[in-house]
């Protein structure tokens, strides 16, 4: 069965099988994998095959999530959006089972259509033909997003994605 091909488990490790070509997103904070897929616009209706591991042990993070997207090379711009909720995420681009490029995500300066403004009186929540737009910056160590329309600032970004 396909599932068995993808996930092999021995007594000590949960292993996700390698992908032939596509994108591997590693070092996602535990529990955030589904949100990463949402940010990338991958849903049950999408054509990409996705394998995912949640809460796997990590020497660097304690626990982490991993997402592998088969057959899709995601653009740097799209991948950088992941940094909103997974600032330490690392990306591997894979071709013919070999890693061809490895890099860390970088915070984008502006994101559109990703975050919903929590201010219900903001024009971006109206029926106008408008996309939400947030400027992204770091305060202390916290990723902060500021609505480009009403100026509302948020730090708990995962709640508004």
């Amino acid at each position, binding site marked *: 069965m396909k599932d068995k091909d993808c996930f092999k488990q021995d007594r000590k490790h949960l292993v996700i099988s390698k992908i032939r070509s596509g994108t591997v997103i590693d070092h996602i904070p535990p529990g955030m994998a589904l949100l990463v897929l949402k940010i990338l616009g991958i849903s049950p209706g999408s054509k990409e095959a996705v394998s995912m591991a949640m809460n796997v042990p990590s020497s660097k993070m304690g626990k982490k999530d991993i997402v592998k997207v088969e057959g899709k090379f995601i653009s740097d711009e799209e991948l950088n959006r992941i940094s909103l909720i997974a600032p330490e995420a690392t990306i591997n681009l894979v071709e013919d089972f070999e890693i061809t490029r490895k890099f860390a995500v970088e915070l984008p300066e502006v994101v559109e259509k990703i975050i919903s403004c929590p201010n219900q*009186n*903001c*024009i*971006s929540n109206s*029926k106008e033909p408008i996309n939400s737009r947030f400027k992204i910056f770091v305060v202390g160590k916290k990723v902060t997003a500021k609505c*480009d*329309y*009403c*100026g509302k600032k948020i730090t708990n970004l995962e709640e508004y994605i």
Partner: protein
Amino acid sequence: MSASKNDRKFKHLISIDELSKDDILYILDRAAEFEDVAKGKKVSKVLEGRILANLFFEPSTRTRMSFEAAMKRLGGCVINMTDTEISSVAKGESLADTIRVVSNYVDVIVLRHPLEGAAKFASENSKVPIINAGDGAGQHPTQTLLDLYTIQKESRLDGCRIALMGDLKYSRTVHSLIRALTLFRTKIYLVSPPMLRLPDDFIDDLSGDIQEAELEDIIEEIDVLYVTRIQKERFPDEEEYRKVSGSYIITSKTLERARESLIIMHPLPRVNEIGTDVDRLRFARYFEQAFYGVPIRMAILFELLK
């Protein structure tokens, strides 16, 4: 000043935050040059042939009239959206479409809208400059500029000790003014009932000399007392409102220990925050403040249209 479009310093006026200290001082200087025209002592035609559209989706008297006076004093024309037309917009046309249509008719649009960020969104859909005349609880930059102009004219901006009193939680006028004042070397006192304090996250974003105080402790020290209305609808019940609002009323007795040079400002309309007995005292400047809206708006219109 040159009439070349290339000299245009500002494209729209959406938020006071987009102006630097130098930008603000530049506009205040331009306003001073227009004061005689605003008073009708001099005639100007610098905006002759230009048309301003007032799009007010919320009621306003003084802001709308003051823009109209400013435009006409400079030789321009004004068209207003009537209440009926606004209600037809409310039935279905988007703000984006309204702006796209109206920006084909006029040279500048003054917009007041109940939603925050509406002016910014309008500027993204407009061929002509947008001036924000208030967007919900958001920004009202021309009010801030006229407040700063009043302080500069009637007191001093640099080194000013100012007390902001009343509803500091919800007042957009106060929020914009505080942000602008922190650009200057000012000492800001916050005087308000506990439930109408300036929000903590707002204070955290500010840098400058700001502290909470009781009016009686600072009345001898301050140069400017800026009073705002305490709105009944902010309180859970009427008794609570009466109890609080009563202690934030300025009378001639409150001012017995004030400095000779103190000025009292209010964005108007007032309800009962300033007793009418104060109007004839040397401290009262709120009607001058309302007048200064005209030269300030003349300066803004000129800068956007020259």
